[in-house]
């Protein structure tokens, strides 16, 4: 049997496949399609302190091998989360991770404090890379000192594992990963969406209500892979690769480039059971190549460089 498990510190994941925030709802949406306990973990839709209605419609546009979205963190806020969502997700037999978002450092801190009290939440993913909100979000993830400040503040109140989710919309993502590591993050996840845009030439206006939005899907995979490779060589904490992973072959590319785990995002829209297929495919790849533990292939490409 091949071991595909991995750990962030003392938090164990039975396999390296997580679902990316904002693309897997709260899990329930996918129960007809897969067994959630077959996943390494699920990362819930971005949560904020207050309820948010999100951005106006239209919120998406299809692009070559990808999609743009500008959801704008629509969610019912932490109160509702504690009361109505937490009881449901805490029944899942896998690691449940909350993706937290804010406009100010204080928002993130208040959220992290609240989530820290929720026993069954395994970790917090600190999202400093949402491109679709007017305040906060990516502003934290594209400025080093803000990134440092928010990571430090959240770390101070968060006894759970802390994953910092990085923005690709920067000149040097390695600096941000190092900063997260320095401030005590237990892992980094990357990439969030690339800031993009589409124009509706028939109506001569932007395709999205907010003009720009976040690009996800296979189109961004080469950029994501490059960043994961760069970051994995630069930090010691686990790196979680995200971006355009549709198949286990894509996932293996990230593992070979240095990722300890991966998140499946947009793929779940195309095939709601994509994530579990990827779990299986990674095992098959390892077996076919004669490896018995996933750690043997982590960053493998660096050997021949």
């Amino acid at each position, binding site marked *: 049997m091949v071991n595909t498990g991995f750990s962030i510190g003392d938090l164990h994941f039975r396999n390296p496949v997580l679902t990316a925030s904002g693309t*897997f709802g709260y899990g329930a949406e996918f129960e007809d399609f897969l067994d959630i306990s077959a996943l390494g973990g699920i990362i819930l839709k971005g949560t904020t302190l207050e309820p948010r209605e*999100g951005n106006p419609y239209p919120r*998406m546009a299809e692009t070559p091998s990808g999609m743009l979205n500008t959801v704008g963190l*629509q969610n019912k806020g932490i109160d509702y989360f504690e009361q109505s969502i937490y009881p449901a997700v805490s029944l899942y037999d896998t690691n449940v991770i909350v993706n937290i978002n804010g406009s100010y450092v204080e928002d993130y801190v208040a959220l992290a404090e609240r989530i820290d009290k929720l026993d069954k939440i395994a970790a917090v993913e600190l999202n400093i890379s949402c491109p679709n909100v007017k305040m906060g979000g990516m502003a934290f993830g594209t400025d080093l000192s803000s990134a440092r400040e928010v990571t430090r503040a959240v770390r101070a109140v968060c006894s759970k594992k802390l994953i910092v989710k990085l923005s690709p919309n920067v000149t040097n993502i390695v600096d941000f990963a190092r900063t997260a590591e320095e401030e005590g993050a237990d892992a980094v996840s990357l990439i969030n969406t690339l800031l993009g845009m589409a124009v509706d030439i028939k109506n001569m206006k932007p395709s999205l209500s907010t003009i720009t939005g976040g690009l996800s899907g296979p189109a961004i995979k080469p950029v994501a892979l490059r960043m994961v490779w760069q970051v994995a060589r630069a930090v010691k904490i686990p790196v979680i690769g995200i971006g355009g992973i549709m198949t286990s072959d894509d996932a293996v590319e990230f593992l070979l480039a240095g990722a300890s785990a991966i998140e499946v995002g947009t793929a*779940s829209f195309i095939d*709601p059971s994509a994530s579990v297929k990827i779990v299986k495919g990674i095992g098959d790849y390892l077996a076919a190549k004669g490896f018995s533990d996933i750690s043997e292939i982590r960053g493998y490409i660096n050997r021949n460089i």
Partner: protein
Amino acid sequence: MAKRVEDLTVTANRRLNREYFVLELSSAGPLPEMRPGQFAQVRVEGSSTTFLRRPVSIHDFDPVENKIKLLVQIVGKGTEALSGLKSGDLLNMVYPLGNSFSLPGRGEKALLAGGGCGIAPLLFLSRYLAANGFEPDILLGFRNKERILESGEYEKFGRVFLTTEDGSAGEKGFLTEHPVLLSGKYDIVYCCGPEPMMKAVASICKEQDIRCEVSLEQLMGCGIGACLCCVVDTVKGNLCTCTDGPVFNVNDLKW
């Protein structure tokens, strides 16, 4: 009603005219329970610009024959590709999705009003209403005679009224001008079609204090409530067309 991802087999692809075609599909095992108003997210293979699935209403569902039909209008790359499907080809669908039209109350009289491609979900609805003991009236509006779609099918389940914009068949004019719609004799109107048409029907219903349900077509990322892209601004806040809809009572919409 459990959702599934499944390859269905195309058993027929019938071209209605330059723009429209009907796909008939069957599955090896029994098809799942479905309700009128629900839709499928179909996968369009074969183009980098059809990355996302396409939402298509269940046009008809015959549980006895274990068959479903989709009525599709060619508007772009995806629907164009689907129009090329042949008998025996597979079509991957995530379905059945979304809510459904509500049944009328006992003894209530229902009118179905559909324009253009909007007639798609109404055939299944007619069949369903008839099966449940109702005798729906069905008002269908088209641009002209050549563009009339499947009206014969609807006649199996209720009385059909036609309008064409140029008067080449049925009443001349817009669907919204047809006397049955203004007759005031219905308790509920089910409507599907272009948004301006639905809005017009909704306001006629409001005036007459008739319940009105419409089926919306918002751009969809996932179809299963996961992406929050298909929202519609309602009196209850942003709701998802794919899970809270596609059928909405017009009183909930900010129309």
